[in-house]
């Protein structure tokens, strides 16, 4: 096929979802981020620890809005964040003096590792990147970043997903563990 021909696309977008599905996605997203946010802002803020990172917003899209997706399953959610966080912290520690290189290496290696371990979770790329560009508050955590916020935060999102996504008779979560 012609190189430029390919850029025209060849199929259509999947159909949109019903109002009930949108409502459940909203409820899940709200409760999931609320749980992580409450622990972060009410319990941890003064301690120098953290539980909320930007990539959890992206995870919420998947685990509350596209719950059938293979990318939204528990092993992807937890595995993707934990492995990517590990790569991100290591990239910062070894390459931190060259931020652009540390950033690129962190994200690219996180994608590769998630693929290798069948834990591909797009927000994991952000988790790896935040470990490099997240500033002093993140850098101070060192490898603790892997467990908290990355691991524990993902666990809170998962718990809410299990509780909320199974309330609707038309939804079930997870597809697999």
């Amino acid at each position, binding site marked *: 096929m012609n190189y430029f021909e390919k850029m025209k696309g060849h199929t*259509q977008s*999947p159909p949109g*979802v019903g109002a009930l*599905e949108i409502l459940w996605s909203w409820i899940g997203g709200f409760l999931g981020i609320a749980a992580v946010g409450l622990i972060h802002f009410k319990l941890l803020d003064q301690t120098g620890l953290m539980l909320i990172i930007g990539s959890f917003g992206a995870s919420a899209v998947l685990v509350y809005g596209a*719950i*059938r*997706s293979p*990318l939204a399953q528990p092993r992807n959610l937890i595995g993707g964040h934990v492995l990517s966080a590990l790569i991100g912290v290591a990239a910062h520690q070894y390459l931190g003096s060259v931020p652009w290189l540390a950033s690129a290496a962190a994200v690219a290696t996180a994608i590769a590792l998630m693929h290798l371990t069948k834990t591909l979770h797009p927000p994991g790329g952000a988790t790896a990147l935040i470990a490099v560009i997240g500033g002093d508050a993140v850098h101070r955590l060192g490898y603790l970043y892997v467990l908290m916020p990355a691991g524990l935060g993902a666990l809170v999102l998962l718990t809410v997903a299990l509780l909320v996504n199974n309330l609707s008779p038309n939804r079930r979560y997870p597809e697999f563990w």
Partner: protein
Amino acid sequence: MSSANLRECAAVDISDQDVVAAMKSMQGYIDITPADFREVYRVAYALAKERMMNALKAADIMSRAVRAIRADDDLIAAASLLAEKGISGAPVIDGQGRIVGVISEKDFLRKMGAEKSGSFMQVIALCLKNKGCLATAMTNRTAADIMTAPAITAAADISVGAIAALLMEKNINRLPIVDGGGRPVGIVTRTDLVNSYCMLG
């Protein structure tokens, strides 16, 4: 005729519209494009079809009581045997028991004036036009004179799918199954093939 049949035999394909309609009937966001789903479906369907078509072999579905006609039998004996057994065709064997041809209603009809396709109605039309029929032209002939030869045969391990393709391609109704020496061990007719679809569930 055969090309029309082959067209009907083409697998049913699904369209993007079918996939989108199915996705709509399911709740929730399906994280795959209709085209990707169709690709998965096509490959999976082909695999399932192959598995089903290979699951049954000729040995599983063939009739084992083969009524063979000897090549030097006269046509009275041959026609009487077919009539008595209620079958429309049989393999023809030589002195060593090897298949040398197949004889069927079509071969008789052709001798009675039918065209190449061998339809009974063509013979009827001819008989009405000529105020009489010409079956007598076949007296003193043997099975070897009118049989279709060489016979199309297959071994017992041929799959049901391959048999169906062969019957369609050669436009024949029965396939003698032979052993290594070319001797008949069974026969698969179109009827046997239809029955085998029940066995596939």
